[in-house]
């Protein structure tokens, strides 16, 4: 009941907000929940409080009723045979329907939050996360890659694209209330927006072998200006941030600066021969052009319309026969086992850079002029280096 009040009160008067905040603190302390360091954490916790309050009331009613019956109707004589009691089905139906409507309410609130948790805002910052026995790697489209520590800016949505090099792992940050499995051969996504600077601990939540309990990551939430400075190569002052520095990770970690992922992707696509069949400027070829492909709605041979996302691209590279694009022959080979997760991440970033107007391609927006010049690397960076960064390291 209190949960309902708490939920309904957000945005009320300052006095209300004070009350809500102290209730939040009280519940969080009793339930031993970690601090709420992401935009979603608060909503999730309020649903938790709501459920635990309703259920404690129900449990108390069951316990007290049972206790009352045991005392009131205890066997006093051995030869006691109580008369029949006609069941009141309508009473039972009422109780059960009342309870069930609460279950459904929990589900409605919870499912809305679940969907929100998986659907990242359009302007989210992308980070590619690769789990392997037993460490986490984080790669940024802007170039830096880091082992063991995820750096994120506060106040900006961050979308994680997770995959694994070996077995299933699961990336879990309690303070952000997020968790998502990193499964080999596919990308999964989840997003969050950190709300306060600090150092948090990330765990692996899926059993992955002997090093499972030590497969931890530091999560460092930086103020936007510090984050920009970090992207440009300045090590952040992690020691000054609140929170627990994971003991097995020395901060600051080694940072390896490499090319922008999109440029790396161009290189990877050339090396694997992708560009022999896929053009990048909109011209027709053996396979669909990559120009404006990412984010577009493509028509399949069976008429189905499918949105080109990270998952779609990864799946298609691994298993080209899972869908057939209308107007093309099924001639693409599988790259399973030949291409690493980091390379796929780079290719996806490259395709993103080529897709400025996917709506036009989807036919969902009006064509507003000639196509923009195709993606061109900045001068001086277009040389393809053998064994480029991210591969033979």
């Amino acid at each position, binding site marked *: 009941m209190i949960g309902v009040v708490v939920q309904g009160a957000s945005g009320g008067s300052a006095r209300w907000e004070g009350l809500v905040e102290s209730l939040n603190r009280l519940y969080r302390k009793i339930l031993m929940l970690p601090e709420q360091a992401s935009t979603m954490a608060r909503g999730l916790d309020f649903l938790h409080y709501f*459920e635990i309050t309703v259920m404690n009331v129900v449990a108390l009613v069951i316990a007290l009723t049972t206790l009352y019956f045991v005392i009131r109707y205890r066997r006093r004589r051995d030869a006691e045979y109580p008369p029949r009691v006609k069941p009141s089905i309508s009473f039972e139906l009422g109780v059960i329907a009342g309870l069930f409507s609460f279950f459904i309410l929990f589900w409605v*609130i919870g499912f809305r939050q679940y969907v929100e948790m998986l659907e990242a805002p359009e302007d989210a910052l992308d980070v590619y996360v690769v789990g392997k026995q037993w460490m986490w790697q984080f790669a940024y489209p802007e170039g830096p890659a880091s082992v063991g520590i995820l750096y994120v800016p506060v106040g900006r949505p961050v979308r994680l694209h997770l995959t694994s090099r070996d077995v299933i792992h699961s990336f879990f940050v309690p303070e952000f209330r997020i968790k998502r499995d990193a499964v080999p051969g596919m990308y999964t996504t989840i997003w969050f927006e950190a709300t306060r600077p600090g150092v948090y601990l990330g765990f692996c939540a899926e059993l992955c072998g002997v090093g499972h309990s030590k497969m931890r990551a530091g999560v460092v939430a930086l103020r936007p200006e510090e984050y920009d400075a970090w992207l440009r190569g300045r090590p952040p002052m992690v020691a000054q941030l609140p929170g627990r520095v994971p003991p097995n990770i020395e901060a600051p970690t080694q940072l390896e600066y490499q090319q922008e992922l999109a440029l790396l992707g161009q290189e990877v696509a050339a090396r694997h021969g992708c560009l022999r069949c896929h053009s990048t400027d909109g011209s027709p070829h053996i396979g669909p052009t990559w120009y404006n492909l990412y984010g577009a709605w493509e028509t399949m041979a069976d008429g189905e319309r499918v949105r080109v996302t990270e998952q779609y691209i990864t799946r298609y590279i691994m298993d080209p026969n899972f869908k057939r694009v209308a107007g093309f022959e099924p001639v693409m080979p599988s790259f399973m086992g030949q291409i690493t997760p980091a390379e796929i991440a780079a290719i996806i970033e490259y395709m993103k850079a080529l897709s400025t107007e996917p709506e036009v391609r989807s036919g969902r927006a009006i064509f507003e002029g000639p196509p923009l010049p195709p993606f061109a690397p900045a001068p001086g960076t277009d040389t393809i280096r053998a064994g480029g960064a991210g591969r033979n390291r």
Partner: protein
Amino acid sequence: MSVTTQEPASYLGAERTVRSWLLTTDHKRIAVAFLVAVVGALFLGGIFALLLRLELLMPEEHWVEAALYNRLFTLHGVIMVWLFLIPSIPVTFGNFLLPLMIGARDLAFPRLNLASLYSYLLGSVVVIVGAIAGGADTGWTFYPPYSAQTPMSVSPILIGVFILGVSSTMTGINFIVTTHTMRTEGMTWLRLPLFVWALYATSVILVLATPVLGITLILVWLDHAMNFGIFDPAYGGDPILYQHLFWFYSHPAVYIMILPAMGVMSEIVCHFSRKEIFSYLAIVGSTLGIAFVGFLTWGHHMFTAGMSSFDAGVFGILSMFVALFSAIKVFNWVATMYKGSIALPAPMLYFFGFLILFSVGGMTGVGVASTSLDVYWHDTYFVVAHFHFIMVGGAMMGFLAALHYWFPKIFGRMYPERLGTTAAVTVIMGFLLTFVPQFLLGNAGMPRRYNTYPEHYQTLHVISTVGSWAIAGGIVLVFAYLLWSVWWGRPVGRNPWGVLGLEWTTSSPPPKHNFTLPPTVAHGPYDYWLGRPDEDDGEPRT
């Protein structure tokens, strides 16, 4: 005992040779053999649990290194799930009581029943020997690609569990056929004791779900032993497919464990309140409802695994229906006590324990079914606590309640009531002490299957470990006095509790063919409003 001497010798005393026990087709002797075996499995699984809890006293690695820790929780899970919880109530009390409760001489297929016993023993030996010689470290869930790639030998355990599945299926078929064809005159479907209904629903799940487990385990074994790559993406396989297949069996498996316990509780609350069940049809309907909807909720184990949001929503709401049916049952049990005549021997104490633990387990189940919270709780100690409340709190309470309630039926002797009460209170309190802190650990973000953990979780781990010692003490006490009572307990007449139920109309322990003449049934199983049961032999009640 004047009554017993006039009747044929009991099944225990009919023949005394070892051969007569090994080759018996008597459902009662097979049940006793199963009882010995599953209790052995319970102790073995319990020892592994105690070792796990001991290691978790300290945040750093102390006695148990990581590889051994992974092997220990795998063994704890495999033994408790497949060697104890899934067979426990059906193969022991189900086997013993199903024919007695419907007035039959034996199960429909006595030799199949014996085959089920030997498959169980064979499967158990393969699992235990395989675990000692090789050792799996995958958890009882065997998730690939890890289970395909692990350097340890998973094969014996997979094959052992497959054989155990065969045993379950045989028991399931036997129970279904027996219930359909061997009911005595007047034993209509709506006069069946609720325990029989529970066994029937359980058997249906066993027969429908176990083959899927068998196939899945064989596929994992092919992956592990011969690199088939069915679930390994490195060879073009799909690890998520495994999770769908595995949970398609393993979620209904939870109801294989809990439904028989619910059946036991329905019996106990009626008999010790001397009341008809509040609504017979509601209990039967919810039993069948759980068996049905239980097949459609497996996806809730995979909310973080890479499933579409739509699927997650569907599985979330279907899971709520299990909670609905469970709530109907809890309501009916509590309402049954209304205006009853309530006695409080040990089985009834286990009923109260069940009511608390199962309600908490079920309500936290509603919590994890509201999809967003599961993202936070998944694979943390919250989930560990949740399923222990259901499986241990539910199935284990059911097993202990049944053991005390039907002990005089099986052995013809009574257990010491005072020790029974002490043990029941110790086990229930120990259980709360062990697992309530684990809910809080999960809330605080402690992932499961960790042998080392950040220091701020230590206090709760210490409380939990101390609780595990209380459970162990209680369980050891139970089996110590029960073992003593088998030989030296106070002898009782046919119906020491003074209750209704066809099983109590024959002598305790029953003769080899259960009934001298086929009984006729004229009333429902809980019609106490008709007055004192005819069969009561006037023995003093405890």
